[in-house]
């Protein structure tokens, strides 16, 4: 009983001291000091980025004096309403590329979770030892600056006025656009049947297009129906051609007797702006050795394109569509600034590719159509 009070006081004091230590950043300091290997240093950095603790992440950098924290945050958190600004780091994987006693190169694969699905990013990070602690040397972010200028934009714009509810029965309405599927090819993949092809807007007005396909078995009964979803450029300007891809998971070609295609088009307001150039396209391999189609997108208009999706269609020597792949660019397309992209190409398709064509879907927050 006599010893009870002193024991309580000692325990309480120790607890308060511990709280004060944590509060003063002792724990963080300890964690930083404990980045005892390059792997730990990069993983700790990635953990802070994942929890969007920018202050702590910035503090882990060896070269934080070279650039401001805002640049670092924009580099990782995104800007200009890009897809990255709506994404969060889901997971990461770190492995060494090269290491000595004092510095190392670590490769990190970041998996971002976004509104349009997972986005992968791969970076090689230089890590160096300062004292007993390894710190990451972050590549200085090169965020493009668009010089002030006036860019005249006088491309065509279409508006649609339909018939009114009170119009007489005989009054003409504006017809839906004529679109046509120009090719269709059923491709077998390990776990699915994929229908790929192209659709063209043959009309003189813009069309909002959707392509659906129904797989029919030997009894001509429908097995499944799927749509192109976002594997198509939905808004087609006059004479514009878009690839499409429709996936049927869980099916095999031997089950399929025929495919019924259905294309629907409706009139929509649209603008011919922006024009996006796709430059320096070439087949390449990414750091992991996967086949990719690389290139850069250049927004030739004066308006920022917040989210861009690249659709690539691949042809064989006979001009037949053999595959369609897509990828979202997580950076905004600022006017006149080239932004790189890369889309995956399956290994077994690469050898058959004779030609390819890239189309860009775009979305701008300020777009009125």
């Amino acid at each position, binding site marked *: 009983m006599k010893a009870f009070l002193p024991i309580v006081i000692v325990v309480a004091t120790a607890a308060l001291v511990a709280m004060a230590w944590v509060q003063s950043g002792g724990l963080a300091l300890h964690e930083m000091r404990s980045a005892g290997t390059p792997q730990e240093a990069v993983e700790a950095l990635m953990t802070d980025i994942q929890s969007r603790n920018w202050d702590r992440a910035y503090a882990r950098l060896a070269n934080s004096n070279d650039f401001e924290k805002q640049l670092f945050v924009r580099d990782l958190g995104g800007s200009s309403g890009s897809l990255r600004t709506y994404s969060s780091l889901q997971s990461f994987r770190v492995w060494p590329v090269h290491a000595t006693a004092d510095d190392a190169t670590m490769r990190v694969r970041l998996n971002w979770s976004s509104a349009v699905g997972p986005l992968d990013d791969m970076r090689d990070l230089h890590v160096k030892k300062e004292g007993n602690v390894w710190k990451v040397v972050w590549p200085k972010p090169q965020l493009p600056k668009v010089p002030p200028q006036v860019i005249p934009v*006088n*491309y*065509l714009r*279409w508006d649609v006025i339909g018939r009114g509810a009170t119009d*007489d*029965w*005989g009054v*003409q*309405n*504006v*017809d839906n656009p004529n679109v046509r599927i*120009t090719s269709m090819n059923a491709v077998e993949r390990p776990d699915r049947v994929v229908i790929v092809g192209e659709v*063209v*807007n*043959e*009309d*003189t*007005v*813009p069309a909002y297009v959707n392509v659906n396909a129904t797989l029919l078995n030997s009894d001509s009964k429908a097995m499944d129906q799927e749509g192109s979803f976002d594997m198509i450029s939905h808004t087609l*300007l*006059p*004479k*514009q*051609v878009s690839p499409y891809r429709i996936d049927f998971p869980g099916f095999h070609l031997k089950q399929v007797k025929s495919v019924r295609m259905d294309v629907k088009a409706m009139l929509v307001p649209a603008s*011919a702006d922006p*024009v*996006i*150039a*796709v*430059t*320096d*396209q*070439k087949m390449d391999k990414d750091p992991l050795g996967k086949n990719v189609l*690389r*290139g850069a997108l250049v927004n*030739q208009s004066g308006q920022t394109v917040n989210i861009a999706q690249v659709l690539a269609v691949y042809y064989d020597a006979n001009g037949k569509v053999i595959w369609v792949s897509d990828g979202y660019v997580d950076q905004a397309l600022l006017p006149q600034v080239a932004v790189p992209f890369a889309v995956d190409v399956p290994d077994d398709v690469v050898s058959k590719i004779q030609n*390819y*064509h*890239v*189309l860009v879907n775009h979305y701008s927050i300020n777009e009125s159509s």
Partner: protein
Amino acid sequence: MLRLVSFCLLLLMPGLAAYAELHPPAQVTAGKGFSISSTGSGDATFYLLAPGHVAKREVKLGQDIAVDPADVKKAGRYLAVACGSGGCNSAAFYVTAAEPDKVSFLLHPSRVRVRTNDAISATALVFDKFHNLVLTPVTVDFKVVPKTGPTISRQVKSNRGVAWMRMASTPKEGPVKVIAEVAKASEARVIQQVASDACNLRIKAKRTAKGVLVETDPVRDCSGNAVPDGTIVSFAEIDADGKTTVDAPIKKGIARTELPVNGSAKISVASGVVIGNEISLGGGL
């Protein structure tokens, strides 16, 4: 005997009095009032059941029952029923459409390519002023007024209220007015004739400080009509750096774009499914 006959007559009188016959005219025209003669005597409830209307009122049997023009607007089969104390009797008659007064005109499509056979379809339905289909054959005059050139007129007799025709689109792009006329009624519609696919799509290139400026000749179809502005022309260039593509819309009849070039290059053009010429750039043009 006389008393017996009188007694029997007295018994029958109410039935005779209440048993009415109705005699409408053989044919009535919509919107024209008429009378239905009736036999019998006494009060009765008169019903007029029309395709789009029902009327009910008290009448005196043995007199003509007047039918207001407003009660016979709709063409079709009518039922006149009179119910008195002795029961109900009825008569049916038909009301036919009045003179043609309106035309519902349907013209398809709203846009059509030039020089296409049987591309335009025109259907005219002839109605009277009460929106009854005029079933007797009438002549519908279809007039086609192109943007340039003479007006074409075609007369078609209606069959059960419908007259139709098909025609080819003219070679020149632009609005075409089509008018359907019946008696005093007239309805006009406009079809937009648009250019067909690009024909002889050709490009020329000129080196600039940034690369090469590529532009098409004025893009026209095979009839010489200008392909509308906004139509997409796809430019593709292959050089040492890879492939560059730009989908550029036609502006004032021409599509143009600037492409980066490294060394020698091949430049091609396409619009929809039409492919144009190819240019090879070496050390110079």
